[in-house]
């Protein structure tokens, strides 16, 4: 009871909303990417601003897949069109190429009141969904795509959570179980905790470059059937944090497995434009599904997700994305429409941006040359940084790094000496969190501990983005190397 309350003679008034009566599911939610280590990094930045002396002058935030925060440039074409959409008076300005103006006009004419400030329908602007469907058809070698099956969303995350909500049902032993890869992007575990779904872990094979193993899927689902009703299988391809790009064969095997076990497939394909390794190629689940013939393509239920935040665009701040749903029960689709209406609509600038991503400048258009140059530069830089990172980490005794075939991350395994593990335990910390906190405090480098993504018992990892500018990246890799050696030495 506070002094003040005593003075007022008011009896102790506990809070209405407490840890005891709040939604217990919310207490189970963790999201490591913006979690404790990131919050510590923000604190350190504040201390630096206040003049506190540290062994470094800035914090390098390699915790989050945000390319433009690390200096990657947005594409000129996108920004020009969006500027015109925002302030159409600029259409008079001759510095904007003709194709930029045409795109802006087309987008604005599809918006209510010709403005990006009007609500769109909850499913997203119709002509943009048509463009997305056409893009998917082209990408997938002609496999038909219907705009009715396209749902624009506030980033891919929004659509993923919506689908999980939709698929959640049952209680007790009948509660929906959702298979997720370990390691995974922690949105999945967070959403499942929030929704009270059952998380079914299937382990990717680190020794085989994080390959997905059908035998492991079988093991996981069989064990899970004892306490839940498995209904969903999530795949991230290219993988986050693993970077692994699924082979076509593997995708087919997964689809077969999903059909056998009657699982709804959620294919998170936001990194489909980030493929670096020679010999790796992105195959969309949708395309492979349809190429497997009607026995599969007319029965397997699938939702595929894409976003404007990754690939070469890196436009995280726009919150643009979409999902394509295949073979959805019409009643479920009606439920889906209702669910998305609660959010009103996805941000219209993000929808507009998505329209440009699926409708980039064509070879005969004025913006084409610059566009291709910028896009190629971005992707080449990412590929180089992926290679550099993998190479450098593999020279450090105690760090092993699988090839970064795609996406934006590296997820190396680190050997943490037993004495350090004991020290961490003493402090009540998970060993890789202890490692990462030490790295952050000593070098000002913010990575996310592998425990935030999931890993096999007894192994430790961290996730680092490959996004810092090349020169900076080299320095960062060097400093991590030095830290690791120091750390290992300290606890030898």
């Amino acid at each position, binding site marked *: 009871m506070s002094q003040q309350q005593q003075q007022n003679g008011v009896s102790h008034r506990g809070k209405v909303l407490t840890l005891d009566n709040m939604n217990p599911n919310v207490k189970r939610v963790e999201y490591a990417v913006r979690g404790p280590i990131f919050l510590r990094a923000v604190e350190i930045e504040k201390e630096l601003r206040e003049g506190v002396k540290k062994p470094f002058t800035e914090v390098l935030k390699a915790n989050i897949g*945000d390319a433009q925060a690390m200096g990657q440039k947005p594409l000129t074409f996108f920004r020009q069109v969006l500027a015109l959409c925002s302030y159409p008076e600029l259409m008079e300005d001759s510095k904007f190429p003709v194709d930029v103006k045409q795109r802006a006009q087309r987008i604005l004419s599809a918006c209510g009141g010709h*403005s990006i*400030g009007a609500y769109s329908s909850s499913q997203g602007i119709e002509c943009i969904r048509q463009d997305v469907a056409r893009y998917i058809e082209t990408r997938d070698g002609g496999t038909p795509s219907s705009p009715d099956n396209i749902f624009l969303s506030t980033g891919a995350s929004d659509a993923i959570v919506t689908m999980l909500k939709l698929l959640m049902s049952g209680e007790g032993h009948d509660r929906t179980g959702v298979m997720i890869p370990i390691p995974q992007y922690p949105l999945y575990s*967070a959403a499942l905790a929030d929704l009270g779904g059952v998380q079914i872990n299937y382990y990717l094979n680190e020794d085989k470059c994080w390959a997905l193993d059908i035998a492991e899927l079988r093991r996981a689902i069989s064990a899970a059937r004892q306490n839940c009703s498995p209904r969903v299988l999530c795949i991230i391809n290219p993988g986050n944090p693993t970077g692994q790009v699924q082979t076509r064969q593997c995708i087919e095997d997964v689809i077969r497995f999903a059909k056998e076990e009657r699982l709804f497939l959620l294919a998170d394909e936001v990194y489909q434009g980030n493929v670096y390794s020679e010999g790796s190629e992105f195959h969309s689940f949708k395309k492979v599904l349809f190429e497997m013939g009607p026995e599969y393509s007319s029965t397997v239920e699938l939702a595929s997700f894409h976003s404007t935040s990754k690939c070469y665009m890196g436009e995280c701040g726009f919150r643009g994305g979409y999902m394509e749903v295949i073979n959805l029960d019409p009643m479920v689709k009606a439920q889906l429409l209702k669910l998305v209406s609660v959010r009103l609509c996805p941000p219209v600038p993000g929808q507009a941006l998505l329209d440009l991503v699926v409708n980039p400048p064509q070879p005969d258009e004025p913006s084409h040359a610059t566009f291709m140059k910028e896009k190629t530069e971005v992707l080449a830089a990412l590929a180089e940084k992926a290679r550099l990172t993998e190479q450098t980490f593999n020279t450090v005794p105690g760090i092993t790094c699988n090839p970064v075939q795609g996406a934006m991350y590296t997820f190396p395994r680190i050997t943490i000496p037993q004495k350090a593990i004991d020290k961490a335990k003493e402090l009540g910390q998970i060993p890789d969190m202890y490692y990462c906190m030490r790295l952050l405090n000593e070098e000002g480098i913010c990575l996310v501990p592998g425990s935030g993504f999931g890993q096999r018992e007894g192994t430790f990892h961290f996730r680092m983005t490959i996004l810092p500018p090349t020169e900076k990246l080299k320095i960062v890799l060097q400093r991590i190397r030095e830290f690791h050696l120091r750390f290992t030495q300290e606890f030898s």
Partner: protein
Amino acid sequence: MSMLQENDPYMKDMKQVETAALFRQIIRIMEELRQGVKKPYKEVIDVASGDPQKTGMKPLSFVRQILAACLYPQLINDNKLPVDVRQRAQRLLGECPGGSVGSYSATRGMPDIVHRVSEYISRRDGGAWSNPENIYISPGSQWSLANIFQILVNTEASTRTGILTPVPGYNTSILSIKELGAVPVPYYLDEEQGWELHMEELHRALASAKGVCNPVALYIINPGNPSGQVQSRQSIQEVIQFASEKRLFILADEVYQDTVYGEKSEFVSYKRVLAEMGPPFSDTVELASFHSASKGMLGECGLRCGYVELVNLDPAVMKYIYTQFSKDSCAPVLGQIALDVMANPPQPGDPSYPFYIEETQHIRTTLVHNVNRALTAFNSLPGLTCQPGEGGVFVFPRLDLPPRAIQKAKEAGLGPDTFYCVNLLEDAGVFARPGAEYGQKEGTHHIRICIMTPPDIMEELLRRVTSFHTQLMKDFS
């Protein structure tokens, strides 16, 4: 089935079928118009949402110029844009990671913007302190409202969580509550008294929840949607006292605070009244206040940006609120920038100030003009009664349809107000929403119409509705 569900004014299942039918209809009509099918109208007037820009109201130039310069920074060096626009854009870009609006922001929003929003709140509330740590910017106010609902709903408790909700009330919020498995506990606003809130009715509603659900929160919309009522300071105090006594969390949806037109009305925030009531209320009553860039002078619905300010919450709970919001990433950066302008519009002496004043004046004048025109027009029609409103962007007139019309509606499997809206759309090309979606007293019917439109659109709207209504009353007399 409990009494609450039996007399559910939100009429869940029937309404959903009707709403879906109405939306299918408008899509069909738009398609037919596109294909050149002959109709008594060339365009649909869509006044179904509180969306001024959809009807043709212009966005504020200052906002859009800043957005353009932030999107394409080359414009910062272009002296076609006013110097204050360019300075702001430069400063904002400096506040974005990597100097780009394409980066994620911090979970609660760009820290400098959050800070400025807290200062804006403080200024609005006569200096009452606003803690930036307690503000979360989200993709629209409904997003943060849903997140807070979610934390309040205890899915593992043996009794379902209840939330007191106004009738009539904003349907999306009610839907959100139901989706989370909580029970809306309706309290009825008094139509005859200009949709006033009576404390006895709150007491009655709370009592009705006994044995049915565990009410933990009170959701209130001020200015009201669709009612248009603006609460007096006295009324807000009473509600706060009620919430304190009955141990309810207050959810104050204040998105229409900047569109108050009633001459005798003034918006005062729940936060301000709470602060001015002093202890014990000011440091115990738990409050979440919601605002948005979608409404007011900005009307930037499509940018998706709003915020919640949390007051007096348990610090331990606040940690979980952070995690809850963090998995959503962040609000769209362009929306955050619009919100920043809302919090810090041009000041006297700024180059953009004169035009900004002209534009906002025009919006205010249009609103007042439209409200008066709509009230006059509707109240002159037999079978339509419109309460004078004080704020918001809607009118919510009551429909008193002849028995034959009600019968016809029944035969069509529709509620009378949905029947009215379906035919209004088909015959007159006006898209309005049936009162059933917002809840209404049993046996009453209403329609909701957004009156934040260009004046000429309003005239056309009134002409069409008058003509349609007169014809309908004649046909079914």
